């Protein structure tokens, strides 16, 4: 019963993050974007096996690709890899260290942005370097900051599953 409530709380949180990704991020409309989908993927992937984490990453990536006009499949591949890796690294992830959480989230978010950038073919265009080396780290840092705060707040509710 307790596990069911944990999953319900997790699903509500993930649903809220997904909605925030598609609702709050366009509403803010700023160049430094917070990737709420990565946060949702990390929240789920640390509770499941790496294979399930990869499938969840595939599904969230498909949702992200469906809403973006170009580079269909890039987010799917990037988030699949992120879901698998973070699920595999869940022993290290979600330690009692917010900085470490932030570093993992930063790396995941930047990796997703870079993979999407290059897999969609936009990484070789003019200005891609600025996007990859300036705006992508800034967006990843913003995502890490929001994620670290979120995880710190929700830590009592969102306990990672035992390996």
């Amino acid at each position, binding site marked *: 019963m307790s596990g069911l409530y944990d999953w319900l709380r997790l699903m509500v949180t993930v649903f809220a993050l997904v909605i925030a990704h598609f609702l709050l991020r366009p509403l803010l409309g700023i160049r430094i974007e917070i990737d709420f989908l990565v946060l949702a993927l990390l929240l789920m992937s640390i509770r499941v096996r*790496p*294979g*399930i984490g990869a499938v969840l990453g595939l599904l969230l990536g498909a*949702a992200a690709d469906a809403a973006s006009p170009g580079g269909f*499949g890039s987010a799917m591949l990037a988030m699949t890899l992120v879901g698998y890796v973070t699920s595999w690294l869940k022993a290290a992830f979600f330690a009692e260290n917010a900085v470490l959480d932030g570093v993992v989230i930063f790396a995941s978010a930047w990796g997703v942005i870079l993979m999407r950038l290059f897999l969609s073919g936009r990484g070789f265009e003019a200005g891609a370097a600025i996007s990859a080396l300036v705006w992508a780290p800034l967006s990843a840092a913003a995502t890490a900051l929001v994620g670290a705060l979120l995880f710190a707040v929700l830590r009592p509710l969102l306990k990672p599953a035992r390996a």
Partner: protein
Amino acid sequence: MARTSRTGTRTDLALLGVAVLLSIVALILPSTVRGTVQGSLRSSVAAPLVAAQAWAERGRQAIGDHGRLVNIVDSLSLAAQSTAPLRAENERLRALIGLGQRLQWGFVATEIVHPGRGADENTVLLAAGASAGVRPFSPVVVPDGLIGMVTSVDAGSSTAILWTNPDFRASATTTDGLAFGIVAAHLGIGADRYLLEMRGVPFRSELKPGTLIVSSGLGNVFPRGIPIGIVLRETKTVEGWARTYLLRPIVPPDATGEAIILLPPRAAVGVTTAWSSAAAADSSQKRITMAGDSMVADSLRLISMRTDALARLDSLRRAAIFGGDSGVRVESDSTTQPAGARASDSMRTRPPVASPPASVTPPQGSPVVAPSARTTAPVIRPPARRARPDSAQLIQPPARRARPDSASVIRPPSRRARPDSAARSLRTDSARARNRARPIKKAPPPAESPFRLPPAGASE
């Protein structure tokens, strides 16, 4: 335990491989197939997410548009505030150009420089001087009418007094020229300070409120016909031999920025055509009013004369019986059918109508003699006499003039029946009718006082 872990790892790897494979397939799909898959996802599973994203985009655009719209509204408000003066200036300049086209020659268009606060507000500076032909006593006009007079001139500018100046005087008259007077500033208190007064109007000349007052042309300063003001009311004066009327000025003292100075040659020739439309409108209104008054007066007079007319007819019958064909001519338009005759005369004020006579209704109060009564009236007419053009008013035998109901026939406009002389036609017809009746029975001379005003428009 280790087997389970290895199985789980293989499953995880298998799932990872499938997921990666699907992702790569999605990446390498042809663009058409990729678009189809993406579209199907967007319309099915991801539809709520896409809708939420679109709604958020619209919200962000609305937020951004709000500030832009506020800026646009502010800009439009500023533009609207500056449009009204521009429109007024355009209309003023357009009217000035129209006045210039009507004047055609002999004028100088200039700007009026109003003095600042504390200065003499009744004197203005004009940006045209002697080099442009301006001379002292040149009239300063605007499209609405007279505004002032040049008092001093130098090479490039001149000074003029406005009509608000206590020294301003202008000989004025009504548009019909019946009343003359001197127009000057009304030195009243408060709002009355900016009115005019027309002094020295003869006591017999009573002006109705709304009468247009124009310059009379007397004095050789202001040519005749420049509108000055409109009669508001009569003011009480100590003089008992003249009237003074309060006028509302045609031109506000501070509403002009440009004006026209009439040069002396142009003022000498006259400018009546430049403002003729306003004067004509006033005269037309006055004529219509007078025509209406004449119609009512004639109708009342006809009612009182009808009894006399019947008695006169009896005397005519007796004269015909006892005198035979003695050449006595009976023109019974004022006896047997006065109302019909005057009704047709009254219709001269209207354009000629070709409708059947039966549809014409005489004015109320005007008795119309029935055709049967007219046919029974004896006609005594020398055979050699020529039928008059307006013989519809005469009693004639039906064989000579086959117009059974000629009392109500509308005649075509003759040379006397000009539309703008309706009142004159009415009066002349009435006078003619009275004169026709006089050979039979002399009417007593009019017992009117010599000091009484002649009928309105009698001088025309």
